[in-house]
């Protein structure tokens, strides 16, 4: 099905509209190159991202998931990312516990002025997922 040499990972990125999405925008406007493997889903706040969404992405065939929000203290809704940080900390540990490879699901803080950092994060995440190969765990195969 997927040939290792021509295989390119699909990565779903949940970006908060106020910081990370604007950061991605800035990366584009400033012509920073980054791998075209990410598919961006704009969310109001990183606090909006639930475990359901992350697992749903993996189930539907994403090879990696990136969740990015404002830096702590910069949340448009004051504290959304603080709550998100507690939940993601537990969630990434739980995924690790059940045997999901570390690196499939990544988290980052990117502000609206960090276009270059956004490009860097996407590069790192894509490389990590490429190294892991196509996702096989928690991926639902339709017969």
């Amino acid at each position, binding site marked *: 099905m997927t040939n290792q040499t021509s295989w390119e990972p699909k990565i779903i990125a949940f970006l908060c509209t106020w910081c990370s999405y604007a950061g991605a925008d800035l990366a584009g406007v400033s012509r920073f190159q980054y791998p075209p493997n990410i598919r961006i889903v704009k969310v109001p706040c990183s606090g909006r991202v639930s475990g359901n969404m992350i697992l749903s992405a993996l189930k539907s065939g994403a090879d990696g998931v990136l969740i990015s929000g404002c830096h702590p203290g910069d949340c448009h809704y004051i504290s959304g990312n603080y709550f998100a940080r*507690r939940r993601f900390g537990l969630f*990434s540990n739980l995924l690790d*516990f059940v045997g999901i490879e570390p690196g499939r699901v990544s988290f980052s803080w990117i502000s609206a002025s960090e276009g270059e950092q956004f490009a860097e994060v996407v590069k*790192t995440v894509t490389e990590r997922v490429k190294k892991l190969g196509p996702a096989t765990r928690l991926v639902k195969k339709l017969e």
Partner: protein
Amino acid sequence: MPTINEKITEEIRAKAKELLESKEVAAFLGFCLGSLPMTTRPFVARSPEEADKLVWNSFCVLNPANYLPELLKSLEPPRGPRDPAPKGPLPKAAVLATGCWSRNISIQIKENQLDRERVVIVGVASRGKVDQRKVKARFPDQEILKIEEEDHKLTVSGQDFEEEINRWDVVRGNCLTCLHPDPVMLDIRIGEPGQERKNDSPFQQVNEIENKSTDKRWQWFQDEFASCIRCYACRNACPLCYCDTCFVDDSKPQWVDKSIDPVDTGLFHILRAYHCAGRCTDCGACESVCPMDINMRILTKKLSKDVMALYGSEAGMDPEAPLPLSTYKTDDPQDFILTESGAAKEGM
């Protein structure tokens, strides 16, 4: 010489009668005997006569906190959705509570599912509940017809056998590692207060799995949950699962498909456990009701361990403190965040 449980049963019946007769409570939530050996049923006594059906033994494994919010709702006088709330105090209910159950009640109060004013908590220190599975495993091809309980031993008998076993050998896993057998909040005490217990490694089982490699852990996860039939008994027995629409019943969006595909089963169990993060008191009701003998408690136990390690709180122990996931600190650990962890930064 009556056993400890017989004494407690008597005390519970007397107290229930007293509360129901004086009309202080409209209902008393406890347990009555089930129809099979080693079973009990949750039971609501609504009159002093019914109080005689209440029992207390090592097989009271369900968590009564699960039935409490609905019971209180049923005690309110009937009214339409737009009718104003009735004037005056609403009827109260009394409920039996051990350490873990009382912590669940405290969480329900915190989450606005219960009104503290309407609950009379009747505290009983838990001596550990017996796991039917463990007893049955000792008599593989025999049918157990009767079980008699003394303080430290159980006499199991069937068609042509009778054997004594040590009670502590067949106590449930969660009770073995329990640290707080005594209720954290109570209005009335039954029996002797329980002692706080010490355990150097309450998370032993979790640690064993953590020490495996990622691939081995994945294999373990697949094997452990392979037999799940998605009956949702674990969800239904759980006092934390009170959402009107559970994520597994959602069809738009359909987070988890309604099948027994290993992926769907896996997603269900990961998310079910995750929803209990920082709230699970390890009461063991989920495992006790599982018809397929799945040890799903290990996932919630892992979350309890992390909540303790990362955010320093134990579910329901402090009725005053906010729940760990509904609060935050500005300096919470964030090593797992790509842009914050030292190692990832160097690689970037």
